[in-house]
Structure formats: C-alpha cells, structure tokens
C-alpha cells in the first residue's frame, strides 16, 4: 500500500488544464516560390475552450478544444506573363523568307501582384484527443538534450531541483482539416482581380489588355492552375502542401506530452519549512504513480529512504 495518496477532482484538473492550454500559442510564416506564382502563409493561433473528461479506464479525454486564429493570412503573388501586341509571321514569295514581326510589350517587365488577405475570422477548427496521465522523474543533474525540442514550447519554467512531473500524454488526436468557406474563394478572386486591374490603364487600353490576357479571372486561374473552387484549392494547400496540419498536431502533442507538466511534486518534498533556526523537513518521494478515475485523478507515492 502506498504511503501517500493525493486526489485531484475533475473540476480542479479542468482549471489546471485551462491554465496550461492558455499558454499554448503558435505563429509561423512561410513563402514558397512556384515560378509563375508564390504562395505563403502568416499565421498565429491559440487554444480556447475544450472540456476535460477523466475516465475510469485510466484515460483522459480532451474534447472540442478550439483553435482560434489570431492571424491567418494567405499570401498569393502572381507573376503576370508578358502582355504584348504584334508578332506573328507572314508568308513571302520565294526567295524571300517568311517575315516575322517583333512583339511590343505593354509593360517593361512581367508585372507582379501580391495579396495577403486575413481569413482568421472565417476559419474555425477543433482539436480533441484521448490520452493518459504519465508520471516522469525530472533529474536536475541530467543535462537537457541538445537541441532541446521543448525550447520554444516550454511555458512551465524548468525546476531548480528534482521533481516528479505529471503529463497529459495524448495517444490519439482528431484535428479538423482546414476548411475555408465559400466566401474565401470570392474574396481571393476579388482581391487578385483588383490588384491586376489596378495595373492596367482604363478605356480602350484596358479592353485591349484584357483581350490579350483573356480576362483577369481566367488569367488568375491559369497562372495558379486552380480548379473551380478556390476555397477547396486553398484548403488543400494548408492541409497538405504547407504541412500546417501536421505541424499543429505535433505541436499540441509535444506541448502537453513532453514539454509542460500539468502538475509537479518536488523531490524531496518539503513538509515543514525552516523555522526557529531549524532546517526544513523534506521527505523523499519514491515510486510515484498516477491514475485517472471517473471523477478524479489519483496520485500515489512512497516515502523513500
């Protein structure tokens, strides 16, 4: 039988989890050049909400944790192909060769346009995971691995002494795919159309240029090589090409499972502080284990020699 038993109610555990979760933020940006166009993102997120369910089978379930985007910028840059008139060849009678006309171009170089709309308010995702509670021993004398995988994720300060630490260790995770609503496609198309149109003078000059490029909307789709649904294309980009989904999943896993304990108990544990010229009374903690029950988390340990 264990020397010590400590229980934490589900409500208290929920509050501890909320404190920890509130500190998980993530921001990243990247820009990839695909030749005729560039695509990138500039994102920042945090977690909100979510409920904790301690279960009898020694597992813990975190449900409907909201990924809130503080910034979800999509960067799309287009390198518009040369817009030229003239050119073509005419057949001439022998011995004169066919004569080819020069092309005269509207712009001195291929013009670029770039937009970076922010869809933070239009995208909502949830994350849920089931895991277990794990107790690990932190030995202050053992150097941290180099490079330290938790360096950017650690929000609970490293202790100055040995500790028993209790982690939430997710085993399975469900993360909503990026799913941009229909309006996003319209917003992107409108923004790109405005940016391209702004390059072109008005009147008959615009009519001519639009005829050469075949219309702004078609030009954009051709350059970006996108299907009918821009929003579907964008969702695929975020889910697959940018690898953001995997990154967020790994981030959440590492944050809870490896880098930030939800509870920590010092070893030796101080049961009486220093007073009256006497040194503090500390007891060594051994064989600490943690279990989840339906209503509470139970920690048991021995007092060692």
């Amino acid at each position, binding site marked *: 039988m264990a020397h010590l038993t400590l229980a934490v109610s589900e409500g208290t555990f929920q509050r501890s989890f909320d404190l920890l979760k509130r500190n998980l933020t993530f921001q990243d940006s990247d820009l990839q050049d695909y030749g005729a166009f560039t695509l990138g993102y500039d994102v920042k997120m945090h977690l909100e909400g979510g409920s904790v369910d301690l279960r009898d089978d020694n597992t813990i379930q975190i449900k409907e944790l909201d990924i809130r985007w503080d910034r979800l910028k999509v960067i799309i*840059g287009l390198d518009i192909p040369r817009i030229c*008139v003239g050119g073509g060849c005419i057949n001439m009678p022998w011995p*004169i060769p066919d*004569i080819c006309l*020069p092309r*005269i171009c509207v712009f001195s170089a291929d013009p670029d346009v770039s937009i970076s709309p922010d869809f933070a308010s239009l995208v909502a995702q949830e994350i849920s995971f089931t895991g277990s509670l794990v107790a690990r021993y932190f030995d202050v004398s053992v150097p941290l691995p180099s490079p330290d995988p938790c360096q950017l994720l650690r929000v609970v300060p490293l202790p100055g002494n040995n500790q028993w630490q209790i982690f939430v260790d997710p085993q399975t995770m469900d993360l909503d795919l990026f799913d941009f609503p229909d309006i996003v496609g319209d917003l992107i198309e409108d923004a790109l159309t405005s940016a391209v149109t702004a390059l072109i*003078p008005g009147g008959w000059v615009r009519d001519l240029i639009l*005829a050469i490029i075949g219309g702004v909307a078609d030009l954009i789709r051709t350059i970006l090589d996108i299907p009918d649904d821009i929003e579907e294309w964008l969702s695929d980009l975020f889910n697959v090409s940018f690898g953001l989904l995997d990154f967020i999943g790994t981030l959440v896993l590492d944050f809870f499972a490896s880098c930030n304990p939800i509870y920590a108990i010092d070893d030796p544990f101080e049961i009486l502080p220093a007073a009256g010229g006497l040194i503090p009374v500390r007891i060594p903690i051994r064989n600490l284990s943690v279990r989840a029950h339906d209503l509470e988390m139970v920690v048991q340990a021995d007092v060692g020699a």
Partner: protein
Amino acid sequence: MQKKKVLLNRAMFSIRPYDSSALTVLTTLFHHFSEAGNYELFVRRGGTVIHRAAIQVSEKGAQQQLNLDLASLRDAEQRECCDKEAGTRYTLAVNSILGFYVSQGTGAYSVALARAEHKERQALDSAAHIPAGDLFAVTLVRPGTYRAVNEEGGAEAMIRVRPASPKDYRPDQAELVTCDAQAFKPKRVDITSGHSVVFRCEAPARLRVELVEPAESAPKPRKEMRHTLRRSSGPASRKAT
C-alpha cells in the same frame, strides 16, 4: 516574391501618325538584302547617328532574319553578338531580312544602309523613302479608322481596327498590303486591335498611317444614384383595409 518595378509602355498608347520616315513604337521597317556584299548601317535619332554597324551579307550566311530594336541599340557594346574589337557586326544570308523596330520610348529613328565598297550607293535611307522590295509594318492598337497614304504617289488605303474581344483573341496576326506608285492592294483592310498591317512596297514609297476616326468606346451604363418617387396628382388616397 521580390516585387519588380514595372513601367507601362506609354508610347504604345499615344496617338500620333505612324511614318516610315520616322520609325517609332509600333512601326517596323524590313529591309530585304537581295545582293551579297558588305554594308554599313547608320541608325539616326533626331538627325544624330546613335549606332553604326557593319553588315556582311553572303551566300554562306545562315541567318534569314534579324530584328533590331532601335531603342536598345545603345547597349550594343554589351551584346554577345558582336566582336568588341571590330565593332558591331551582323552576318546575314542573301535574301535575308533585317528588321528595325522600336520597343519603347518616344524617340523617332531613321536608318540608312550603304554599300561599304561604294558609299555613294545607298541601299536604304528610310528618312527619304522605302526602296522597292522593302516592307513597312504598323501594329495598330487603338480601335478606329485609319488612313494609309503613300506620299510618293498619293495612293490611299483605309484600315479599320476593331476592338479586341477576349474570346479567342490572338495578337500575333498580320495582314499583307501591297503598294506601288499608284495604289494599295487591297484598298481596305479590317484588322483587330493589336494586329499588324504589313505594307510591301513594289516601288519606292514613303508611308504614313494616321488615325482618322477613333472608335467610340461603348458607354458604360451609368449607375442610378437617386430614386425619385412621384406622388400622383391630388392627395394620397390610401384605402384602409
């Protein structure tokens, strides 16, 4: 993506006559070398020679056509085409074509070609006229009606330029018109904005193409900003139901 500084080629859209004696943006002069020999090329802008080059036309020359952008000739020293020691030199085949065009800017240019051995024998002096066998091309972008005039003989032709439509538009189309001392054939040409008309001169000519009547742009429907309600005569009589 590093944003480039891009300038609009405004000269393309300025309205002015196109003249074979003063080559500007959207005009091209093609000289046909029917004889082998060594030639000297002089390119003038505003009466000043801005570029000289030697041209060798021989049976062995492989190049059938060379188009020179008169607006960028000042960079000739940096071109890889030419022997830096001996100056700019182009090698062409007999019956090849040397084209002169202006890609940008407001400058007007003229070109002259003289036989190197007999400098008094000018093969071409565009400021005076285009010799028989040469061609002058104009790319017309502004929709409207244009008049082409051969100032050597007074012959006239009409060119109608239709607005371009985005559906299946290809800018690289050209119509060939023959001109002799008396007339153009055909006398009337219909093209689309951005297409070219190539005049083939069968006699010395000085060609001028000018806009006679621009096409009216289709007026855009005006957005109604005000809605006026008029009351029928007499006091309003709304039946209570």
